[in-house]
């Protein structure tokens, strides 16, 4: 698609515009806080304090961020190929089966570092499997990926309720969850990483899957910008007809990209299941797949943007819990509003302030040009 807007300097394109969009999203969120009758500045203070005020809080913030890095990368990879994967939520949910199977099988006999790689493979495989069908349907049968992935989210949710209430639940137990994993199914915490900075992790479930997330983020960067396949998928994302003309197989790219995207979403399940609860519960994903959309949009689908965006949303989740504690009128649903506003302003309305900003830059350019002329004369 042709770009109807004038080109901006890179720092404005990747720094200023997302920043302005983000600020507007937060200002509107502040209006909601006002409507509820609380002071938005106080709310902001409680949020930042609740997210970074103590080692334990930072641990929680980074724990949530880990989850969002995975789902954000999942959405971003699909974006680059021009595909909108709303199904990260369902793929992460199904990915949980892979983690759980590995843990239930080996947690009593093997140490965590044996179980962990198997769980990674399992989660990625199950997530990829759940994304394969929508990808295949889009590529071969022409059904719209957005609609099929939405449908697959609901199907996943029904399937998981069935599995957790009938199949995976231990005998005699009422709660819809698996048994608690033994030592082999529990990931070590990253307390040493925080203690380097003199912080105490407390009860925060900040665990080794954070390092995995960083590694995977690097992997995604390599894949998209440093491999032939990445070049092909970006070509398809920019111009499907150009890709077709260049002999790139759309079918192949669509299916593989969706499977990668699903695999990344599935790996998200490692963090809550092996890192915090040590069992699979109903609804353990808790909307993280949808947060991934906001994270990917805010991070401009680049791993270097996704990691800070994920940390910002981790801050919202952890800090949001603290706000709810300090200001009873503001529950954690405030985060859902902010998430929606970020998606709106950083995604759908991303070009709203662009004309004004480019006019400003154009004016700046002219003025310096005339200044140079007068100096010359």
């Amino acid at each position, binding site marked *: 698609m042709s770009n109807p807007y004038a080109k901006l300097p890179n720092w404005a394109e990747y720094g200023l515009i997302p920043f302005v969009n983000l600020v507007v999203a937060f200002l509107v969120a502040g209006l909601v806080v006002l409507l*509820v009758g609380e002071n938005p500045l106080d709310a902001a203070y409680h949020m930042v304090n609740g997210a970074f005020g103590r080692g334990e809080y930072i641990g929680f913030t980074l724990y949530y961020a880990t989850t969002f890095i995975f789902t954000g990368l999942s959405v971003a990879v699909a974006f680059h190929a021009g595909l909108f994967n709303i199904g990260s939520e369902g793929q992460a949910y199904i990915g949980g089966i892979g983690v759980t199977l590995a843990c239930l099988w080996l947690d009593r006999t093997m140490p965590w570092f044996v179980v962990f790689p198997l769980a990674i493979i399992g989660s990625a495989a199950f997530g990829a499997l759940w994304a394969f069908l929508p990808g295949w349907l889009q590529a071969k049968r022409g*059904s719209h990926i957005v609609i099929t992935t939405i449908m697959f989210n609901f199907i996943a949710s029904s399937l998981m309720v069935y599995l957790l209430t009938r199949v995976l639940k231990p005998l005699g137990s009422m709660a819809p969850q698996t048994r608690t994993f033994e030592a082999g199914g529990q990931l070590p915490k990253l307390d040493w990483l925080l203690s380097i900075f003199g912080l105490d992790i407390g009860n925060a479930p900040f665990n080794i899957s954070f390092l995995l997330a960083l590694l995977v983020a690097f992997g995604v960067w390599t894949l998209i910008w440093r491999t032939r396949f990445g070049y092909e998928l970006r070509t398809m994302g920019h111009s499907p007809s150009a890709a077709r003309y260049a002999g790139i197989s759309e079918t192949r790219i669509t299916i593989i990209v969706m499977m990668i995207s699903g695999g990344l979403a599935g790996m998200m399940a490692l963090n809550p299941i092996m890192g915090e609860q040590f069992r699979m519960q109903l609804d353990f994903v808790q909307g993280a797949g949808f947060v991934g959309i906001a994270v990917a949009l805010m991070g401009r689908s680049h791993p270097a943007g996704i990691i800070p965006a994920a940390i910002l949303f981790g801050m919202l989740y952890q800090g949001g819990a603290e706000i709810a504690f300090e200001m009873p009128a503001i529950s954690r649903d405030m985060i859902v509003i902010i998430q929606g506003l970020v998606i709106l302003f950083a995604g759908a309305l991303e070009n709203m302030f662009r004309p004004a900003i480019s006019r400003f830059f154009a004016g700046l350019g002219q003025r310096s040009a005339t200044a140079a002329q007068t100096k010359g004369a």
Partner: protein
Amino acid sequence: MDFFHTIIALLESTIRVSVPLIFAALAGLYTERAGVFDIGLEGKMLGAAFAAGAVAGITGSVWAGLIVAIIISVLLSLVHGYASITQRGNQIVSGVAINFVVAGSTVILGEAWFRQGGRTPALSGDARFQTITFPFADSIREIPFIGPIYADLLSGHFLLTYLAFALVPISWWVLYRTRFGLRLRAVGENPGAVDTAGISVIWLRYRAVICCGILCGFAGAYLSLAMSAGFVKGMTAGKGYIALAALIFAKWRPFNIMLACLLFGFLDALAIRLQGNPLPLIGQVPVQLMQALPYILTVILLAGFIGKAIPPKAGGVPYVKER
């Protein structure tokens, strides 16, 4: 006879649960036929349901509730329209955003204003829609076969229920027999041609989006003013997505939409009724399978195994005049 009564009861609840689906799917029909994809039906319905419940709860007037529900839903539609028509943003992204903003704010505002755990005050009397009983319903009920059909199935629904079913032929007429409808469909297939004819693509699409808002307003008001007495948080519970599925399942045609919504409503009613009871011939069916069936059917349809669903050609593509 007992079996017959069960069927009547089942069909009656089918009608009750399909009404919001019909409203919402028809709402989607208008925008999507005009080339604006809308996955924000869920959010608009939820926002309207909250507005209806809140206003009817405060004023005690069901009509005030309905009107405010429509206004809120139209405003949300206009946000979607502004993002996807004027700003030429991604329509899917915009729809997702609206769903989240509404899901969060209905809970926050509801809790702050009413302090009842995200509910609005329980409605009664004039603050709620009452069912309409047809003349002679009670005296005819005793007649075998026809009696129960007239008295229990046709009579005794809400005004909005009859409106929903009336809107099906009306929408067909508007879309296929009026100038506005012809242009609306044209703008979803080939906006360039419409523009060449000197008709504003932008304004047409905005009008389609407003129609969508009005209908979603009805859907939401039905949920909180008719089906239940007041708003409960998250009360749409995915109905907007089922409506979207029904819209696709119906291949973007009004009468098919009614049938698809009735089918999905029937599955829902059946799932509630069966809860643990075996189905004749098939045996025990997990409730979860019944719940997932509308989505599975839609996926199968989209895959082209039951006919082919071809969306409006210009759907999801913002119109750029210069090209």
